[in-house]
């Protein structure tokens, strides 16, 4: 292939769709490396500390799309201190210097300051897409900068961010000349927005297909927006409270009827059952429905709604749907691919809402189900074995039994056999989260059968180091392993230190790993960052120099070519 002109090689590389393939060809020879790097348009950095931003930018000067992830996944559940790290600024600065053609930036679990957003807005004349997921550190002032300076902005997608509200004026910063918006999602914003600005913005963006409003947007405004944008495909309603007898309600129904392209609905904050009929006209077209923020819609009303959604592919609900409701889903939603059932009563003191029955029903009724997140009060081995038989095509299986360490309530046995059946049957399983009472046996099964597994989440499980070792030895494709409150210690950690260089990261908290074990790992593997996170207060009588025998509360290990990071706060020790 070396006698092909480079332009031809570049054309051939254009056909490589995945990052993995492009990464692979770049290692073949110097020529291919050069061709690949100069034609690379999109880079994904799974761990912002695995590589320095300057290096990425230097290697890929023609970058158009950059995705970077920061904090480890358990940060979603407050297990990682807020100021642990994951700053977006170095990435934006490096890109501003090295890739002025940048058009898209996607950040997840990173700290983004308003100054960073302002720099972003001013540095890239062609900037089109900004997606921030589970980020924090910025306010509506930063959004104002984006709105003001990004002339050709197509997508502003804010998902579940912690952002400070400094007033509604940011939305008015979109100039009248801005007509390019295709997707706008500010559902996580807590404050008000200016309704008139919003309506005018929607009216002048003919290509708008995704619009997710926040809770502060009234139904009245929603109605007006629908009238202006009947071509919407994905809608997040604001607060969905309205007097169902009022004229406004009838207007709303009429406007919904006009939205023939609507395929996905979410929002529904404060929705009461009486308002639901407003969406009945379009239910038959829906492929996505998210009712997980509407605790007031339960039982019969939920069922009535779902019965009309026969084309549903993605459904997110609260567990007040009940096993009965899930049976209706099983009967109605034959196209269902993804189901998420969230706990409505997070501490489980209410009525047990969904059990293993609901899951079994869905597994038998929905032949296309491949992705599951299920919070429930109990699960049995028999049910899991049935589910495994019914749905061998699962790629993501996350089960959370709310009471940690709870066994099969019928047999009082651990759930090893049930999860074992899942991994044995679901050959394409890429992501798995375990819960309930589990011994080392389940990990033996996982090591044996879960060949494609890439991400595993473990909590309150296992008996001994053997459990973790089974997983490390068996799962060849493991990329992310996160463990909390399980009895795995130094022996397991150090069993196969080379393994961690084949993975993105390992998180262990409240396990039996000691400081000495972490130090040993760090000494043996210089290309890993071994971080120990110590949230001690100064007032603690102290363990200024804790002995190596002391257990480490939180440890985060990741492979890196960037060396120890220089922005770690005091309480993070890189060994």
């Amino acid at each position, binding site marked *: 292939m070396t006698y092909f002109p480079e332009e031809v090689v570049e054309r051939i590389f254009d056909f490589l769709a995945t990052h993995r393939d492009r990464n692979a060809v770049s290692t073949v020879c110097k020529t291919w490396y050069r061709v690949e790097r100069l034609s690379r348009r999109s880079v994904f950095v799974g761990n912002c500390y695995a590589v320095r931003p300057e290096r990425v930018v230097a290697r890929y000067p023609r970058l158009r799309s950059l995705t970077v992830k920061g904090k480890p996944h*358990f940060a*979603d*559940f*407050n*297990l990682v*201190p*807020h100021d642990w790290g994951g700053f977006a600024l170095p990435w934006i600065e490096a890109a501003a210097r090295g890739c002025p053609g940048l058009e898209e930036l996607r950040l997840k679990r990173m700290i983004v300051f308003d100054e960073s957003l302002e720099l972003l807005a001013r540095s890239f004349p062609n900037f089109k897409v900004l997606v921030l997921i*589970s980020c924090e550190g910025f306010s509506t002032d930063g959004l104002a900068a984006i709105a003001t300076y990004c002339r050709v902005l197509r997508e502003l997608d804010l998902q*579940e961010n*912690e952002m400070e509200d400094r007033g509604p004026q940011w939305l008015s910063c979109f100039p009248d000349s801005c007509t390019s918006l295709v997707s706008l999602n500010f559902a*996580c914003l807590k404050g008000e927005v200016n309704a008139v600005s919003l309506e005018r913005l929607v009216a002048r963006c003919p290509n708008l297909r995704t619009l997710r409003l926040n809770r502060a947007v009234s139904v009245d405004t929603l109605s007006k927006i629908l009238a202006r944008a009947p071509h919407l495909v994905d809608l997040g309603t604001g607060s969905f409270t309205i007097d169902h007898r009022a004229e406004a309600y009838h207007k709303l129904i009429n406007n919904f009827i006009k939205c023939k392209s609507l395929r996905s609905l979410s929002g529904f904050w404060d929705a009461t059952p009486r308002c639901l009929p407003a969406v009945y006209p379009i239910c038959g077209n829906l492929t996505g429905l998210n009712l*997980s923020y509407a*605790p*007031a819609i339960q039982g019969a009303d939920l069922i009535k709604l779902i019965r009309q959604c026969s084309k549903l592919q993605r459904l997110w609900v*609260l567990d007040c749907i009940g096993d009965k409701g899930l049976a209706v889903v099983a009967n109605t939603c034959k196209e269902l691919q993804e189901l998420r059932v*969230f*706990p*409505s*009563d*997070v*501490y*489980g*003191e*209410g009525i047990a809402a969904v059990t293993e029955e609901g899951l079994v029903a869905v597994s038998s009724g929905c032949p296309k189900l491949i992705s599951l997140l299920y*919070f429930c009060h109990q699960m049995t081995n028999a049910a899991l074995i049935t589910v495994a038989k019914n749905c061998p095509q699962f790629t993501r299986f996350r089960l*959370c039994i*709310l*009471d*940690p*360490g709870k*066994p099969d309530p019928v047999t*009082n046995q*651990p759930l090893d056999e049930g999860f074992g059946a899942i991994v044995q049957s679901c050959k394409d399983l890429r992501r798995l989260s375990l819960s309930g*009472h*589990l*011994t080392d046996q389940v990990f033996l099964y996982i090591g044996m059968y879960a060949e494609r597994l890439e991400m595993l989440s473990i*909590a*309150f*499980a*296992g*008996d*001994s180091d053997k459990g973790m070792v089974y997983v490390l030895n068996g799962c060849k494709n493991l990329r992310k392993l996160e463990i*909390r*409150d*399980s*009895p795995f210690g130094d022996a397991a950690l150090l069993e196969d230190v080379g393994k961690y260089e084949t993975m993105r990261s390992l998180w262990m908290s*409240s396990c*039996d790993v000691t400081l000495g074990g972490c130090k040993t790992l760090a000494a043996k593997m210089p290309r890993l960052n071994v971080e120990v996170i*110590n*949230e*001690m*207060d100064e007032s*603690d009588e102290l363990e200024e120099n804790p*002995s190596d*025998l*002391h*257990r*480490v*509360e*939180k440890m985060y290990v990741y492979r890196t070519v960037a060396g120890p990071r220089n922005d770690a706060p005091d309480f993070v020790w890189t060994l």
Partner: protein
Amino acid sequence: MELELGLALPNNHLMKGLDLNDGSTTNSYRKRGFEEAFEEVIPKATLPLFVHKNGGDGDDENDSPQLKNSPELNSISGNRALVGWPPVKHPRRRSAGGGAEERWSEHCGSNSDDGGGGRRAKCVKVKMEGVAIGRKVDLSLHDSYEELFHTLNQMFPNMQHGFAGFAHHPHHHRRRFMVTYEDGEGDWLLVGDMPWEDFIRSVKRLKILS
């Protein structure tokens, strides 16, 4: 300032100016000196940390193994102070129905920005002998010693031989641990000797000894 503490849902009281050195407790229990307290062996800890539900009203009834399998201990209510459990994202906890917001224990985390109204956590540090890193537990989320011990068991799984299923293996080898606390006057006492309300009022921090 006199502290008003009750066992109602945390939202109902504000703990301004928490002053644990306010020695105006009216309890009549007898405080023990440190050595005196910890020389004795805990009587037959089938359940090293469990005390009868009524707390120490002076009458330490015999612990029965049944306590381990009691519905209260297996119930989720004891998990209220477990950080990050269940694994649900922040915004979802806020909008989940009912009292989820109040009971959430993020106040014990390092940087809690939760502006959720008026609830004041009573977080005390918990250190376990031999463990460098301390934890924090929000006492305001507990109503009894049982619930507290349940939480501690989950925070320090070393206290059992393997955490998972501790409540389901009554014959597991158990090590003996003592939970002690420092009160407002700097004395170290055994947890469980006095009524729960008095305990909450005076406790400053906890220490688990083996």
